[in-house]
């Protein structure tokens, strides 16, 4: 008896599924936040870069253009998405599952955890042929996310809000609550611009490493990565 193609597929899929194990890790709000946040960071990086070093200008009537105006409006709008998204993400760390707390809390007192950071390091240096399996972030990813993203986001929000306060005026809430940032760099807000801009490069570097690692791990590691951030389900390949 010949089987139909569909039956054949079904048979294969069933056999295959015995190998695959899946766990639901990233809940919907976290996933939604991730992609909105990724979009916001991208827009912020591009508009921010252009605010500091604008493209060659355009001629004609000033009233006919609003180039810098739009760049700034876009930057500030996505800044709020980024900032409130981050606040929401902190909230989710309290109410979400334990994986939602990973980017905020590092088990730095656990020697075992550091050992696994080191193991992951060796995996990236081709010293180890086989990575461990993780349901949540692997320890090195966790460390990177904490250092670059969690700290970085707080830093960008503080320096950004200070600059925003300057534009709103010194009586504004933003200036009142964030002017300590100016004091921290010695009073001259030019330095805050420069430091905020330094944050841009740190962000770019994080995103480069992060996206590379996501794709590489997706292919090389023993678990799914990108589809996990889309569907929430972590699949294991062995």
């Amino acid at each position, binding site marked *: 008896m010949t089987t139909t193609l569909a039956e054949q597929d079904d048979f294969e899929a069933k*056999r*295959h599924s015995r*190998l695959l194990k899946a766990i639901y890790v990233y809940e919907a709000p976290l996933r939604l936040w991730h992609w909105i946040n990724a979009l916001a960071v991208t827009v912020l990086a591009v508009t921010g870069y252009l605010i*500091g*070093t*604008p*493209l*060659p*200008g*355009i*001629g004609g009537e*000033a*009233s*006919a*253009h*609003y*180039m*810098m*105006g739009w*760049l700034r409006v876009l930057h500030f709008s996505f800044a709020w998405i980024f900032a409130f998204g981050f606040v929401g993400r902190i909230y989710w760390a309290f109410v979400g599952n334990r994986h939602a707390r990973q980017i905020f809390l590092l088990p730095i007192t656990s020697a075992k955890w550091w050992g696994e950071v080191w193991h992951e390091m060796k995996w*990236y240096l*081709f010293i180890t*042929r*086989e*990575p461990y399996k993780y349901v949540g972030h692997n320890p090195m990813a966790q460390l990177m996310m904490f250092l670059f993203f969690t700290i970085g986001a707080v830093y960008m929000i503080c320096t950004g809000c200070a600059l925003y306060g*300057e534009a709103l*005026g*010194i*009586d504004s809430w933003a200036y009142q609550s964030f*002017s300590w940032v*100016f*004091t921290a*760099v*010695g*009073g*001259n*807000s*030019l*330095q805050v*611009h*420069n*430091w905020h*801009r*330094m944050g*841009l*490069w*740190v962000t*770019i*570097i994080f995103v*480069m*490493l992060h996206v*590379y690692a996501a794709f*590489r791990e997706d*292919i*090389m*590691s*023993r678990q799914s990565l990108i589809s996990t951030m889309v569907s929430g389900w972590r699949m294991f*390949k*062995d």
Partner: protein
Amino acid sequence: MIETFYDVLRRQGITRRSFLKFCSLTATSLGLGAAAAPQIAHALETRPRTPVLWLHGLECTCCSESFIRSAHPLTKDVVLSMLSLDYDDTLMAAAGHQAEAALDEIRTRYKGNYILAVEGNPPLNEDGMFAIQGGRPFLEKLRETAADCKAIISWGSCASWGCVQAAYPNPTRATPVHKVITDKPIIKVPGCPPIAEVMTAVVTYMLTFDRIPELDRQGRPKMFYGQRIHDKCYRRAHFDAGQFAEEFDDDGAKKGYCLYKLGCKGPTSYNACSTVRWNGGVSFPIQSGHGCIGCSEDGFWDKGGFYERVTDIKQFGIESTADKVGGYAAAAVGVGIAAHAAATALARARNKTGIDAKIGKDHHEHA
């Protein structure tokens, strides 16, 4: 008998008519409206005169130069008469021992009641030997005079922040006034020099209302340092439009486009230049086609190029711009990622790493 300001003014030959004009002018320049004019007049007629002592440390006298060029001759006359010129190294008539005696006299007679205006700052290295006045370090004189004063006005960027003599490497350790005198209210009026009208208005405010104007986070009067040059710049429309001069002699410069890309520091400088302007409202740097250099901001000499928008970061041993440091770092990371990806592909092709090594490349077929 207590002398009032009005008495002094009349003695100096200022008519009542001029006096009243001055009062309304001042009320307007302080943004207080016409109703405040009689109040100012009343205060000046009844309040005992507060002497102002004007000391000079390490400085170039540009603040004094600016001050005596206050636009309205009336303002200048009145304010100069209000100041006790019994002591001001550059403006007083007395000299030598006579001058020092005058200083002592005011200090004892008006103990706790005079205002100390400081132009320049004390250098602290070598026990203050880099500024000697009357045979003693200026530092000593400043401390002594400050001890009995009511409040201090720090004129200009020297007294407020340190300015050029405090720029890196600051060989004399020139130090702004507020870091030497810590127990008195200090009003900073920075700028190199500050705008004349701003200076006279600050003095007038303090003398007439007998209180310190509202100050910002860094101790500058909000009424003049509450907004950035950028907030009131007449080229702002070009900034928002994205129209920039790229070179000092290009078409954009001729058309009066925004000087942002030529390093204008207007977006980070708090001062009144774009509203009050200079030399009696004739012009100000940006109007003359040169970007703001941020002379009223802390440490403006040491913040990188005047003609660059993204300037040097000078902290933690970094002395380069964010774009240079960050750009190179990002490029290095990019190269690293490419190399790592290539190495990964190679190892994978040889089936030596990762999931392929673990379960065999062709596990789909044989599973």
